[in-house]
């Protein structure tokens, strides 16, 4: 599944980067690439351990809230 998610993210990225370069949107390109990086990290984390990760659990534990 990791390869599938990566393929989707990269295809969307190629399409959007092409459009942004065509429209000369240099500033937007920087933030877009940052979001691509986040998406790649999230997709890799999710596909490696789909039922183990929980953001809510991490935040609640950090604040010491029982759940």
């Amino acid at each position, binding site marked *: 599944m990791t390869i599938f998610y990566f393929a989707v993210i990269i295809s969307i*990225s190629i399409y959007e980067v092409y459009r942004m370069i065509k429209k000369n949107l240099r500033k937007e390109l920087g933030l877009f690439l940052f*979001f691509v990086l986040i*998406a790649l990290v999230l997709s890799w984390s999710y596909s490696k351990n789909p039922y183990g990760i929980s953001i809510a659990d991490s935040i609640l534990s950090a604040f010491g809230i029982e759940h």
Partner: protein
Amino acid sequence: MIILMVILFSVTVRAVPSLSAAAKQAAWICPIISLIFTIPIIYIFSSIYKVYKEESFTEVIEEILGKITGKVIAVLYIIQLTLLVVVNTRYIAAGPLTSMFPNAKLSLFSFVILLTVAITIRKGIVVIARMSEVINKISITIILIIAVFSIKNIKIERITPISHLDFLSLIKANIILLGIWSHFLYLFFFSEYINNKEKLKKVCTKTMINITILTMIAIVITIGVLGSSIVELSPNSYILAVKQVSIFGAIERIESAIISLLLFADYMIISILFLTILNLIKLLFKFDFTKSLINIYVLIIFFLVQIISRNQFEMGVFVDKIVIPINVFLGYVLPIVVFIVGKLRKKI
């Protein structure tokens, strides 16, 4: 403001079990207390927009609190709004899973919802607002018809007695409702699109009074028909209460109308929050064009929806203990701080 009425309906209906758990039979009084807290915020925004007629709320914050503080606050709002989109999408996607399709995958439902949102938000806030105008009239008509025909099912002993002993539990329940009504602020991130700001006080007050009445009706129907002890244990309590309604003993199963409205309201809330995030990013980074960010942001939201929590119980605690208090702070406390600092610096 019509957008606000449409989006608050679904979130409020989802929150009725939490309100009932906190305030029991007195939960139907919460909207009145929340209105008392919301009216000063309306007056604050009215004062702000008498001076800053064309700016959005982020630009006002930058002007009053300084550029760096303003940008940090804008980033906080983007993170909180992203969290709200993720939480709302998770709740909506989990609904069919728990009720109708227990063997299906969460990723399938969240994908469908986010794909719909990604396609339609490209049209912009104006199209969403026009859709809301049409749906708002239909939804208010349906809610009022259901309210009228639910009267015979409501038992007065389930919504009374109310006494001074309920005061503390009402304050606790009120925080939940304020956390929901804080969505009111997020619409002011589009204030550069809002015309006739001189009528802001009157329009907003009228809208919040309408929302108060509709929320009270929804809570009275739910608790009056089912009782607070059943409501606090049932995630779809309003739909359960509406299932008891029959029109002239002949027309039943009208909960399907409510389910359709809730689905539309859910789609609307995700769309509006998404558009707000894009508008904030546009203002924060001074971008000309943010449509290119839609697809990748939708993907990020998709993965966050899958990993936000392991189950609905964890989700519920997370929303009650973390999301709602942050909403109350960003939606009510921060505008008051901005107003006070603005007055002290003689900018308002």
